[in-house]
Structure formats: C-alpha cells, structure tokens
C-alpha cells in the first residue's frame, strides 16, 4: 500500500474517513434510483421510494438497534430470531389467549428488552465474546418460537387487522403505513440519543477503545447492557411491525435478518470494529437493500436469490472500502 497513489488518498481519507462511506452510499442510492428510472417504466415515482420504506420499515428498526451494538464494537446475531419470537408471541397472546393488543405489545417489548439486557449482562459480567452469547440467544429465541407452535399462527384480531390496513396519507396522493411512521420516529430518537446524550457519547467511546473508556471512568458495564437492551427492544418492535405487515406469527419469519441488519449498518458506513458510524447511514443502507429488491422485482427476469448475491457483493465492496479508508484504525 506504499504506492504513490495511496498518499493523497490517505490524506483525503484522514480528513473525511468517517463520512466517506456515507457519501459513497448516498451516491450509490442516487445512481440506483436513476438507473431504475431510466430502465423501467413506472419506476420514477415517489411512491416507489415510499414502498421501499413500507416493505422495510421493520428492517430499519432492527438495523437501528444493531447500529448501537456495532458502534460499541459488538455484534448481535440474535435479532432475526428475536423478530420471529415477537411475531410468534404477539400472535399467540392475541389469537390463542384472547389478550387485547394493548396488553400484548408491552409484553413483547419487555421480553425483547429483557432478553437483550440479559445477553448484555452475560457478555459484560463473564467476558464472553458478544458473538457467541448472541449466537446462543439466536438459538434460544428461535427454539422458543417452535415451543409456542411449529405452525404459522395467522392473526384475525380486528384491532390488529385494522391497524395493518391503515394508510397514512401524504400530500400528492402518496401514502405510507403506520409502521413507516414508527420506524422514522425510532430513527429520530436514535439520532438524538447517539449524538446529543451522554449515553450516546459513551457508546462511541466504548467502541473507540474500551480500556480508555474504562480509565476515563465511563460506565462501561452499564452501557454495554443498555446497548444490547436497545437492540433487543428494537428487534421486538421490529417484530411487532412485521406482525402487522404479515398478519401472522411464524417461527420461520425473518430468517437471516441479522445479516441484512449488519449489512445495512456496514453499507451505511458504520465500522464493524466500532467507534465510528452514523445511524442515518444505516437508514440509507436499509434503503439501498430495499431498492435492490425493488429493481430486481421490476426487472422481472431476475430471481430472488440475486438479492442475496448483490447484498453480499455490496458488503464485500464496503468492507474493502472500510479497510482502505479506515487507515487510522489499521494499527490494531
């Protein structure tokens, strides 16, 4: 890497290291939308973009939680299973136990946040790698789904179906689902928490260098537990949104969603080593993933597995970008 080209590149990257992936992602997004609009009839409309949000609102919420965890240098592999467990739990409570939705929702959120906090505590107290603890959480949540039922539970509860069919109308004949509104509120909250609170600063400090954070007297343990609780809460909320979207609970919902969430965060410019990234970038990442699906469905001749291949390819490119431009962190 000692070529003559590398020098100016590194000087540039030193100044814009954190924002560069974000710029690349934004450019990519514009490019994808332009190509789609030129290529396919009916692609160039605001509703197409809004549909991306409608179809991926739950992923956005989950990816926001994941961003918190990745910022601390950890990883949460349990989110996909947690989403499935939330759909299952909601369907089970509402359909098979006849509980009102107003009771089921807090229960599900509490289970998510509690499960996350428990994993965070194990990670912190016993110094076990986050990867392996959340892997166990992933098995556990998925297994609990099957313990509730191995079959899909469809939801016919009138309140739930009414919410699911609600349209939030926007000017110009456009519309979004309530899930999109909730996801955007979560995004705004996450932005404020990460950039304007002491907790947010501790999250970044923890990802930058844990021992330094500890020496500075920051509450390392409490923050770690909190971060995994946030991720658990977000996946439970994401699961609720998915329940409204699918109107069913099923143990095979959201298989592999942890990968989509990680990919969204990485494509959005969050460093997987922690300490650097933006939650707004994650939103861009989710939009990129959604737009890939949209383009593939507009193309018509491409099959769904191309989504996975393209996401993998993008992940590859962005990881390379992180290595090449994240020069300051290469010392590790």
């Amino acid at each position: 890497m000692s070529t003559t080209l590398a020098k100016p590149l590194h000087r540039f990257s030193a100044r814009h290291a954190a924002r560069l992936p974000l710029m690349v992602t934004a450019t990519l997004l514009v490019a994808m939308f332009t190509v789609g609009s030129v290529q396919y009839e009916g692609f160039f409309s605001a509703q197409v973009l809004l549909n991306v949000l409608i179809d991926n609102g739950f992923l956005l919420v989950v990816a926001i939680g994941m961003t918190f965890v990745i910022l601390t240098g950890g990883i949460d592999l349990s989110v996909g299973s947690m989403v499935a467990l939330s759909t299952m739990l909601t369907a089970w409570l509402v359909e098979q136990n006849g509980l009102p939705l107003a009771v089921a929702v807090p229960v599900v959120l509490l289970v998510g946040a509690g499960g996350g906090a428990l994993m965070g505590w194990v990670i912190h107290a016993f110094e076990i790698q986050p990867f392996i603890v959340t892997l166990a959480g992933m098995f556990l949540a998925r297994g609990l789904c099957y313990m509730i039922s191995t079959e899909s539970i469809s939801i016919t509860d009138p309140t739930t179906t009414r919410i699911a069919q609600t349209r939030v109308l926007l000017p110009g004949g456009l519309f979004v689902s309530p899930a999109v509104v909730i996801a955007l509120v979560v995004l705004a909250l996450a932005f404020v928490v990460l950039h304007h609170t002491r907790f947010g600063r501790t999250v970044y400090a923890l990802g930058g260098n844990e021992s330094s954070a500890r020496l500075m007297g920051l509450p390392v343990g409490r923050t770690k537990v909190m971060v995994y609780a946030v991720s658990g809460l977000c996946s439970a909320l994401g699961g609720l949104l998915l329940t409204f979207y699918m109107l069913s609970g099923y143990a095979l919902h959201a298989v592999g969603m942890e990968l989509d969430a990680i990919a969204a965060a990485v494509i959005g410019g969050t460093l997987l080593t922690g300490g650097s990234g933006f939650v707004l970038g994650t939103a861009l990442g989710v939009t990129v993933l959604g737009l890939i699906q949209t383009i593939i469905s507009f193309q018509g001749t491409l099959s769904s597995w191309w989504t996975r291949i393209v996401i993998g390819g993008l992940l590859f490119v962005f990881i390379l970008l992180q290595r090449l431009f994240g020069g300051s962190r290469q010392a590790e």
Partner: protein
Amino acid sequence: MTPPHDTGAGGRPARTRGARRLTEHRLFWPAAVLAALLLGNLALTHDFFAVRVQNGHLYGSLIDILQFGAPLILVSVGMTLVIATRGIDLSVGSTVAIAGALACEHIATAKDPGSLSTVMAAIAVALGVAAAIGLLNGLLVARLGVQPIVATLVLMVAGRGVAQLITDGQIISVSSSAYKMIGGGYWLTLPFAVLLAAALVAVTSVVTRRTALGMLIESVGGNPVASRLVGIRASGLLVTVYIVSAVCAAVAGLMISSNVSSADGNNAGLWIELDAILAVVIGGTALTGGRFSLGGTVLGALIIQTLSTTIYTLGVPPETTLVFKALVVIVVCLVQSPAFRARLSRRRRTAAPDPAPAAGDLTARRQEVHS
C-alpha cells in the same frame, strides 16, 4: 483480553493425583457428557446400543449417529483449525450448499451420470471451487486484515444465493450409484461417509500433530505479533487454514447431497456453521484461539448429533433442539469463561478457604477491574 497462554496441554504443576488428573484431562468433560447422553438414550430405548448386521451392513442407532454426524464432524474439524488461529469461518454452510449444488448440477447434466469419471469430475469441480472460496476468505483475513467474522460473513450472505443460482432455485435430483456411495454407501460393512470422515480427521491430526504445523497454527492464534517476530509467515498459514476449512465443508456438502441424492441450495447445510462452532467450543477449543483439540471437536460434534437423535427419540418437535443447543452453548461458555470461574472460586473461598486457586491471578485482575 486473551487468558495467558500457559505451557500447553499437560503443562500444569504436578499436584494432581490419578482421579484428579482424569477429570482435568481436556477430553474428560466432553467424553463424560457424550457417555451420559448415550446412557440416557439407553434408558429411553432399550435396544439403543444394539448393532446388527443386515445384508452385510452394520445397522443401529450408534451407526446412524456416526453416519449422520459425519458431515458435521468434517465441518467442525476445519472450523477448529480456523478458530485456533483466532478466526472464525461463517461461510461453511454456504460452502456446503455450493459444493452439493455444483456436484449435482455436473452429474445431472452429464451424459452418463453413473460413471465413475463423471462423479470424479463433479467432485473435482466442487472441491476446486471450495478451495477458491477458502482462498478468498483467507486473503481477506490475512492480506487485508479484515476481521474473520466480517470477511466470512460476505460469503455467508452471498454464498447461498450463488448455490441457488447454480441449481436455478430448484432441488436438483441425481441418480448416480457412484455418487450415492459418498454419503449413503457402505464399504467394509461400515457407512462410507464414516470411513471418509475418519480418514480425513486422521490425516488432519497427523499433519497438525506430527509436524510443526499445529504448533505454528497455535502460535499464530496465541500471539500473532510474537509469531511474526519469530519469523512465522502467518499470512500463508492463515490462507491455508481457510482453504482447509472450505474444502472440509465441501466434502461435507458432497456427503449431504449424496445421501439424499439431491442438492437444495436453500436448505443444504443451513446453520451448520453454528453447529460446527458449537462442536468446537464443546470440544474445549477456546474461541480466543491459540490452542485446539481435534479429538475434543469430534466428541463435540458427536454430542450435538446424539442430542438431535435424542430429541427425535423423545418425540419432541425436532425444531426445539435449538433451545437445548442454546442452553449447551451458554453452559459451556460459562464454564470456559475465566471470569465465571473466578466468581465461583471467590464464592467458594468465602465459604471455605481454598489453598491453591487455579485462576488466582485472574481473580485479582477481575477484582481490580471491578473496583
């Protein structure tokens, strides 16, 4: 962060007596758990240990466990070497799917699917592509310094898509008796898959334990910087390890697809990477690298396979195996965690003073950290 790399296997002070030495042997606990599981099965099914000969083949639950466990053993052995270098290979499940898809696609489109040359060519294609996958993972980790979990995540995501691309989203069925041999055939009365797995495990353990390779791998995993300073070429070693892991996964993929005579890009090898990591961890190889035990891994894989068999025998929905696996992961990790042991020994000491705490220095460090 890693616990201090001590003098290696058996390097403990000679304060132990016979029984104690037995329980402290690194394979004792995995072997005990496996034995307990098998005995538990005997209580459930009375002819569990019965092995009978039928048409010159051995049949029985124990043989089934070995045969269905063979792919997991192979994947886990590759994973052990990767984890010993402080890495992880998440792409093995996708590699399993890709290898099976490639081989079946090649056989299904060949003129004479039954001939040995066709099958050999199919195997060569699958193993060659797997080696390329391993090479890519290895280069990302060793040359570009990408975290292993991230580097292999790429192919974990994309690989399954590639496998479906190869099979065109269908389940490809093949009818080739030569191919069927790999996963479903018998040789010398034993399932061929078991013999193949045993041979590959034997080769791996001879190569790593009778040459310096094993020590070099442990050295790189234990302390990458120090190994570079003493002149170990870590990057070549890392690339090799990832290639071995991918090739092992490919052989497992051939076994799985051969056993059911079809390739399913979507479901073949699904979550096998997690089972393999679990097997490695149960076998006593620490995820922090620096030390590995192939024997432990084989025991770990057999424990997982026996656990699955037990669940089936109990008549519980097989999907709930995941809950048991999760509990096993949690317990094993807690037992391995120095912090957990330190807490336990601290608690024990307040009750009755223990003259020689094994993790004394770690306890001190922990207390320092917590104060």
